[in-house]
């Protein structure tokens, strides 16, 4: 499977990465190189194989329903590049 420039732009847009026209061709080449190399997996017969999802082979532990966190608005906001009082801010969103 090989990517055309439109596909490169679509992926960049999904990933929220600005790409300039000049970058598209280069990225296209690199991604196609990697994807072409990855295509070697087509050789592997995986019929009947259950996918392995995670690194740990256990079932999930559950925690008790207790409030142990929060109540730290300053700490949570202290790294914000732009804030207004107790809020994070972003450019105005129109729904």
């Amino acid at each position: 499977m090989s990517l055309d420039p439109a596909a490169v732009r679509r992926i960049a847009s999904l990933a929220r990465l600005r790409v300039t026209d000049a970058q598209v061709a280069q990225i296209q080449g690199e991604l196609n190189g990697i994807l072409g190399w990855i295509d070697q997996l087509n050789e592997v017969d995986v019929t009947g194989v259950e996918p392995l999802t995670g690194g740990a082979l256990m079932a999930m532990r559950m925690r008790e329903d207790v409030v142990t966190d929060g109540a730290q608005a300053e700490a949570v906001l202290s790294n914000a590049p732009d804030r207004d009082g107790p809020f994070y801010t972003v450019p105005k969103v129109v729904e």
Partner: protein
Amino acid sequence: MFDFTLSEARDALRARKISARELTAAYNRAIASLNSQINAYITETPELALAQADAADAALAKGEHGPLTGIPLAIKDLFCTKGVRTTAGSKILSPFIPPYESTVTANLLRDGAVFLGKANLDEFAMGSSNMTSAYGAVTNPWTRRGDNRPLVPGGSSGGSAAAVAARMALGATATDTGGSIRQPAAFCGITGIKPTYGRCSRWGVVAFASSLDQAGPIARNVEDCAILLGSMSGFDPKDSTSADMPVPDFASACKRSVKGLRIGVPREYRMEGMAPEVETLWQQGLAWLREQGATIVDVSLPHTKYGLATYYIVAPAEASSNLARYDGVRFGARTEGGHDLTELYENTRADGFGAEVQRRIMIGTYVLSAGYYDAYYLKAQKVRALILRDFTEVFRDVDALVTPATPTAAFGQGEKMDDPVTMYLNDIFTVPVNMAGLPGLALPTGLDASGLPMGLQVIGKPFDEETVFAVSAALERAAGFTTLPTLRAGA
């Protein structure tokens, strides 16, 4: 002072032959004099280190000490450290001061360690050369015989490995997603272990690929790694993938005999075009183990060659999602001037992430996208299952595996940069271990023709780091590797 291993420094501190302040001050000086050449540290915290050292001396004076009291360490800048800038090697986190301490570093502080600073790394741990760091390349303290051109320390934990090799720290924390502990340890002539997935908590470690990321130590020798890993590991209820298992005494496992152990040699690791000296090194290692009473067994891991391609689907997929949180809203750098939210995101992320990170985010986004998920991601998960199955079957018959750590010794800065895939091939021997979640240790056992260190890798069963340490210590004793890099403190 710089000839001390970690365990020797620990004993000297307890015997009050040296003070923690003296030791830390010496390492601070080493960093001050060498970091401009090596660039192993992104952030140095000499004052903080001295304060921690003073606290260590106070504890030692009262006869109270933890396993690491007064031991100066480098912390890979992927571990969040409370109040100390944590960048993950990325511009996008350049202003980030974590208001919390990662579990692993908190464990080390609990045990009395001193933190010298934050070690350089490939951006978001994505790389095998440390060339992708936004804070500049790290220079390997080793050089080729008669050739002063700078070499890479490997990656992504290049700063950690270089710091330990150049004696700018007694040990270091590192992380390994596809070889990021073992490959730089091998390139820098020192020792590093990636424990079993779930052994060290991932809480507070900036995520790259969650199902593969594992923290581990890099240190001067096998026993030092065992001591550090003992402190770093342990069950953490804050990490759902953390294993609720007791932490064995790894250091005492280093003293175990390998007599009677069955050591597997996977034939698929004998790659086409592999340098003959790698083969020689490998055979030498197997001979040493045989001499110490181990049985060497030929085994097969048929899906080995697909490990890397599988990795380059799984890891970017997880990374594309893990790195979505870097959007310039709650922390980190932000590029102002966009007209709307989408432009804020696109500009912030395009400016904040380097080329390799963007490349992997795009690969990951693509392999998860509608219409391609089954062909790429699901397929990779199935191959991953086959890779695990290979190991599981082999481990029915053997106690550990021994392989080369890397296909080559350290290469020059700027080499292998033209084609991403060439760079990715560095991790061919280490990646399958991450795919299967197993423990793997790399240690130096010889030099290549140009005088650069070369390492072997010991792979164990899940949660059987003890056997890995026993086998590694046996190799270490036999190899007697004592060569030191050109650039180092106290030289």
